[in-house]
């Protein structure tokens, strides 16, 4: 069985992964116009400014969509299938989307619009942000 894929941070993305190691969720934001860019860009998607910095965000959002993958052909996830992927729309900005997993035990609770909050999964040499359903 293969281990789950390890991200290879580059000069654009290193702050994201370093913050995750400290259990903080940061998103690249444009200093000029305030737009959040994710994945990080070399110039702002909204205004093309190059003055960008990483800011900590609330880590809260809602489930934008979800799927349950049954095929055992996703690298590192062969043994895990079926497994849940959600896309989270962060509260900070419309269509500011991040991919996450949910534990399979949440299968009956996963719905579009459900509030979620970031958590952090230790995975050997890295830490991966993972969103979890926010209990009322």
């Amino acid at each position, binding site marked *: 069985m293969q281990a789950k894929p390890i991200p*290879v941070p580059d000069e654009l993305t290193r702050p994201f992964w370093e913050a995750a190691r400290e259990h903080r969720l940061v998103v690249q934001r444009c200093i000029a116009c305030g737009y959040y860019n994710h994945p990080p860009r070399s110039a702002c998607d909204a205004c093309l400014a190059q003055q960008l910095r990483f800011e900590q965000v609330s880590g809260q959002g809602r489930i934008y969509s979800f*799927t349950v*993958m049954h095929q055992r052909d*996703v690298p590192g996830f062969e043994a895990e299938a079926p*497994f849940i992927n959600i896309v989270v729309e962060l509260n900070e900005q419309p*269509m500011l989307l991040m991919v996450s997993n949910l534990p399979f035990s949440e299968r009956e609770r996963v719905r579009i619009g459900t509030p979620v909050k970031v958590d952090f999964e230790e995975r050997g040499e890295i830490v*991966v942000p993972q969103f979890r359903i926010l209990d009322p």
Partner: protein
Amino acid sequence: MSSTRGRTAIVGIGYSEITRRSEKPLGLLAVAACRAAIDDAGLDPSQIDGLTTYPESPFAGAGNRDGIDVVSVMYIVNHLPLAADIRWYAQIETGMIASPIIEAANALIAGACEYVLVWRAMHRPEGRPRVGTSGAPRAPGEAQFMAPWGCTSIVQWHALAWQRYMHRYGATREALAALAVNSRRNANLNPRAFFYTQPMTRDDYFNSRWIAEPLCLYDCDVPVDGCVALVMTTAERARDLKNPPAYIAGWGQNTAPRRTLLHYALDDYMECGGSLARKLWRSAGLGPADMDAAELYDGFNPSTLYWLEAAGFCRQGEACIFVHDGRIALEGELPVNTFGGSLSEGRLHGMGHIAEAVRQVTHRAEQRQIKDAEAVCAIDGSPMLRGSGIVVTSSP
């Protein structure tokens, strides 16, 4: 209506064998399809002086060895004796297979060449590529925001978009079942289709296994090894050839800026698909109501629904209702994917759709022929991602 309307035509169609996995390398399948298309047009290979293709691998990371995974312009130049001096070629990397057809039409109108060969060769690779051989796979670049969560398969991205569509419009899987069963029924009348001899019922659809919920096996096209080729020329030259010409009335490509840059975000589909449709209808001088059939891309089943709305065949959010009550059947008011689509003919990446549009307007569609068909559109791609399309007509 534009000055390009009816000035070029598709005059030959060639299919290689279409099988799950061919003993022949892809390059030889492409040569066979090209020879068949030239022969169908009643031309000699030495008359072909233009070449174009869309040589994309079936999925990212699937390899791009020429003649094995893809078939480039240079592969055909090296393996098929054509005109001594090829006057024009283009290898298109955006849009989909209608995009090289659009470029070929422009080249013919400009007088850059006389007879163009267009092909799309599709290979079904063995399994999924592995990133590295031991230890954890590495995820560089944009993959670092998808692969660590196992969200790297195109079918997962389509499932995310379709889940969102169902949520937004209250659609159910019944719409996809109706499309899949309609396509299979048409494929049972298409001797080239992978599923020619296998019927499928609504129950078969609902009993099939999940791939990525809410998409099941029959929402995914059937991967095949094969190639389809076409011959194009000017309207003047087309009149002297053996087949009735399928005149190219108009075309369009997706050009709207995408807000999200993410394949799976449904939200852009009307805007991006609409950017194609507006140009398509304006250049053709025709509209959705003039179409005798619509061949709409179905690499994954929901894309057909999105195109029905984005191209204006029905209103936004209503395709899931439109596809019922026999409306999209061969004898219905708008026959859709009359050859079986990629779902049931095989994954030819849009070329099957174009070949069928040509057959219908030239009245060469065998048992599937729509009576007096005069205008048919073929649109490739998924509207929120990319796409290109053409309208073909039986008169210029």
